[in-house]
């Protein structure tokens, strides 16, 4: 297995492409219960990440992830900038000084990243945010590793769990983020952040092994 600079770089590059492909869809989801910018936001941020990765050689995964996280913080703004930025920063920090990264270690790092999202955004399960995709995803990842799976299998499980979590946001009444302003009217719409989170994990499953 190799969660290394090359594969993590491939992951983020693949995610940037996926985001570009789904930008209009994410913005449309955000129009329904937010302010119609989530696709544009993520696209601007991920394009900047790809540009940053192209410019620099990274000695370690953690350096790369921190750079990517800082780039998101500095280019997205809105809610998703600090949240995705913090996620990558914390994930990177958790991987600092590791020569090789095991599946379990990567899982712990992802969980640290998600804890960063919670620390920043204070979302709880059922609030209809990206956390509703992240929480089941990291649980599924750990469960897959615990039952002997490799990183690919664990990320596959995580992406599937995220997709289920994403789908479950649809009936929810939002309690965090912009959608919460709609009250009951937020029900019946899929959360854009949970959607972009699922795409991130799908990209991971396709590129990391």
């Amino acid at each position, binding site marked *: 297995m190799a969660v290394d600079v090359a594969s993590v770089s491939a992951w983020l590059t693949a995610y940037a492409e996926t985001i570009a492909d789904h930008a209009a869809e994410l*913005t*449309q989801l955000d*129009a*329904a*219960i*937010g*302010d*119609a*910018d989530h696709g*544009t*936001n993520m696209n*601007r941020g991920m394009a900047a990440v790809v540009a940053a990765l192209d410019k620099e050689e990274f000695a370690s995964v953690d350096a790369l992830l921190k750079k990517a996280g800082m780039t998101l*913080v*500095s*280019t*997205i*703004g*809105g*809610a*998703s*900038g*600090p*949240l995705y930025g913090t996620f990558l920063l914390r994930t990177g920090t958790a991987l600092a000084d590791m020569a090789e990264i095991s599946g379990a270690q990567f899982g712990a790092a992802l969980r640290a990243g998600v804890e960063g999202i919670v620390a*920043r*955004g204070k979302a709880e399960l059922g609030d209809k945010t990206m956390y509703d995709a992240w929480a089941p995803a990291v649980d599924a990842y750990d469960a897959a590793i615990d039952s002997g799976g490799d990183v690919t299998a664990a990320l596959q499980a995580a992406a599937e769990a995220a997709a289920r979590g994403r789908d479950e946001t649809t009936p929810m009444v*939002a*309690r*965090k*983020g*912009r959608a*919460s*302003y*709609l*009250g009951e*009217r937020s029900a019946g719409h899929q959360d854009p952040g949970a959607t972009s989170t699922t795409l991130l994990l799908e990209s991971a499953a396709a590129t990391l092994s």
Partner: protein
Amino acid sequence: MKKLINDPADVVKEALLGIEAAHADRVRVDHDNKVIYRLDAPRQGKVGLISGGGSGHEPMHGGFVGLGMLDAACAGEVFTSPVPDQMMAATKEVDGGAGVLHIVKNYTGDVMNFEMAAELAAAEAGTEVLAVVTDDDVAVQDSLYTAGRRGVGVTVLLEKIVGAAAEEGRSLQEVADLAKRVNDNGRSMGMALTSCTVPSAGKPTFDLADDEMEVGIGIHGEPGRKRLPLAPAKEVAALLVDPILGDLPYGQGDSVIAFVNGMGGTPLIELYVMFNEVRQLLDKAGITVARSLVGSYITSLEMAGCSVTLLKVDDELVGLWDAPVNTPGLRWGA
């Protein structure tokens, strides 16, 4: 999408160039950081006042930079809060030794980005930073379990009043306390006749039939709390004023600054018709209009509609309101 723009991706950049060109006598613009500065910032010994938020709400915030109001405004992408780098740059630049107040509208993104900036600025430069978060929109339920209420019209009044206090030389803590007091005494509610279109999205955020309106909208094209049949100005005024009056509550004998705000696509003639209705409702409730503001000051791109803001005031607040202000968007006595 019908807009006077070039590439949607360049709207903010080009608007900042236009602002700089139109108001070079009062502001300068850091185009890399997308920050509008008061020409003479930093002012030694004066508390620095910074605000910012997504673009598309002009004149707020960039139009409120100048004597008696803000020292800097950070312009985010359209409807997207600025990033911490912008607020950090602004914080360092306007610090005249008396500390810096961040005026933040209560949106998850704005709050988080300003928080990160304050953490970083304190760590890096040692600048003392306090923040006030405005949350005056009664269309949103106030709750500990949600993101809370949005910051809307009160932000404009607060920037003026707190700007005057900072100009007087009050301390950071005093200015922050005053800001909190203004926010606590203000309430707003808005409605839309049409949606706006985010330039990069290219189509209206929501669709409204010709005989419908959205009540309880915010300033980002967020859909409102409810969709109602189009109603005359008199009914619209009641739909906005009644929830405000009941919320603080405001009552008989209170004095207020009454602010009827256009959302960007509504002409002044309609705002005056609305103000006439609002004033009658306040009269009926025994509330005195100490000062008023009618115009498009906190907008939502080309959305048609309006919001009403009431701020309960005492002599001190009225005095600060009346103090000289010289910004592109609000000017008197100077």
